[in-house]
């Protein structure tokens, strides 16, 4: 099990201009009857495919690795299948003004960076990609910064938007640390806690 790694990525972006994109849209429940993580790319946004103008249907967007979406992306279910389907399609980062909690954690564990940037920057980035769909967008986890060429504004022509991710999750992705391996290494502390734990906290209710 190699842990996912992520330092920085520069790639083409797809804009999905919708708020509260929930996990039932990212991957409808009927695709959850699987026991593996395989073959989920086709399930991504399955019920939005074929709608006029749906951006993932545009062949020009093949190869995009960055998804730009509206606020509260990934709300709803805890299904990690949402993160699996996004990575299976080829996404390595999602940029939005905000993410749902469980989705953010699930994504980080898969090496899919949830970059929450301020609303103004988000609007500028959407406009820039709207003008030039081939515009390369950089998601730099090391610097915790999204960058794109925006001509005016900044002196060097580069627009920047800061984001932060959980420092521990960031270290894990930069260094390729595997969270389960890390937890397994805590065995002694866990055993000590178990020795102290109140019997009333055991599911058998102390009736053991």
């Amino acid at each position, binding site marked *: *099990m190699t842990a996912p790694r992520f330092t920085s990525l520069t790639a083409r972006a797809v804009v999905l201009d*919708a*708020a*509260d994109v*929930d996990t*039932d*849209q990212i991957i*409808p*429940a*009927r695709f*959850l*009857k*699987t*026991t*593996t*993580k395989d073959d989920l790319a086709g399930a991504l946004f399955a*019920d939005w495919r074929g709608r006029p103008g749906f951006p993932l249907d545009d062949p020009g967007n093949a190869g995009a690795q960055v998804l730009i979406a509206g*606020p*509260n992306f990934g*709300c*709803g*279910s*805890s*299904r*990690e*299948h949402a*993160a699996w389907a996004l990575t299976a399609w080829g996404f390595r980062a999602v940029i939005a003004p*905000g993410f*749902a*909690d*469980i989705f953010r*954690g*699930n994504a980080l*564990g*898969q090496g899919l960076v949830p970059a929450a940037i301020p609303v103004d920057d988000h609007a500028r980035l959407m406009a820039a990609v709207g003008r030039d769909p081939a515009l390369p967008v950089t998601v730099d986890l090391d610097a915790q910064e999204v960058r794109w060429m925006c001509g005016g504004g900044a002196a060097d022509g580069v627009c920047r938007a800061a984001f932060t991710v*959980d*420092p*521990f999750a960031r*270290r894990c992705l930069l260094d390729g640390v595997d*969270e*389960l391996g*890390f*937890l*397994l290494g*805590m*065995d002694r*502390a*866990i055993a000590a*806690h*178990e020795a102290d*734990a*109140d019997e*009333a*906290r*055991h*599911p*058998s*209710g*102390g*009736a053991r």
Partner: protein
Amino acid sequence: MTTAAGAAPRTLFDKIWAQHVVAEVPDGPSVLYVDLHLVHEVTSPQAFAELAARGVPVRRPDRTFAVMDHSIPTVKNPLAAADPSAAAQLRQLAANCEAHGITLWGAGDPRQGIVHVVGPEQGLTRPGMTIVCGDSHTATHGAFGALAFGIGTSQVGHVLATQCLLQRRPRTLAVEIEGGPGGALPAGVTAKDVILAVIARLGAGGGTGYVIEYRGSAVRALDMEARMTLCNMSIEAGARAGLVAPDDTTFDYLAGRAYAPTGTAFDRAVARWRTLATDDGAAFDHVIRLDAAALAPMVTWGTTPAQACAVDGAVPRPEDAGGDDAAAAARSLAYMRLEAGRPIAGQPVDVVFIGSCTNSRLGDLRAAARVLTGRKVAAGVRALVVPGSHEVKRAAEAEGLDRVFRDAGAEWREPGCSMCIAMNGDQIGPGQLAVSTSNRNFEGRQGKGGRTVLASPYTAAASAVAGTIADPRPYLEARP
């Protein structure tokens, strides 16, 4: 609660959190111990596969309990009726539980049912515990004063292997809900209506990063089933968990349950549970207040649970929401095919679903039966009643509720998640409108192209009779 002299006042959440921290990672998350891990067929197979690939055992099978609920058909002999991929998933869960010595309440077991219904009714869910499940509605268990939240499949693997999780400490949000005298809710208004009003206030992402504690006279007056309904939908405001402080209502519910402590062990446990309530003067990061005495029954009009209004009100005008919310509201209304400014009541209904971990307990079925007794489901409406567990089903049948539903023309099914998530064959058709007691009205949640209106069991049952979205209050007058 008053505190010992000198101790800083703490919230219920603070106390549970402190008791479960195994270690702190410098500049990082806490390693949090999990007392109870609930597992179901949909979000666990890849986690078990991860353990197998690493050659790691399940650390505490005695703290792990599994059920079949999400993809199980709600008919007799569900395994025979399941489609091949669902059947394979159900078999996989059975094999994984067998291999690791995990208790499984599967198809045919008298304890089988929806994971968030079964845990409490078996007495597994108790105050002061940490409880996780690969399911976002795990917040339900917070009704007992347990810190309970949903996790992804990788984390299911972490808990199977280590009984621990890496968790950042969330912030705390107090939701103070005041009722009328004695905390009473207005006639026809239930915990479901209260939580829809809370979510409408907070917004679909307004609780993100918080653990909610529900407080106030209206909460104290709710029975345990209603408190579960309240906590269940915390996630629909983005909150990880919802909590209610344990009290005599909680202890009375737990006494005598299969896994609850007995005798002097129960008394010791109660004494300990009483210390968990939030201390007087403890600070929350944020507080909101809701006057429940002024509420009417609520229904959703859009495609997030936050898009809700009073059932006797009008579909809101997007322009009143302002800014981005206006655009989102307009999109939701277009999908729902509802017209702004028109009364929401009277909209034709195709399907009524009474079930799900939000509203499938005995009290919910009694509420639906109160409306349906001596009445008929309107022609052309399909009504499905799906008890949350076999225990609920037996109790309902013992008091004749199944007859009430059947006589009214509703289907009385076997337990499972059913039309809440539409994975098991129970679903609505494209364009159909369902009034549903479940918790999500996302586009296509109950079937591709389907339109969902969330409501209480009263409102759902009244809508079944009327054949349109209906205010339940006239149906409840002159009823016992």
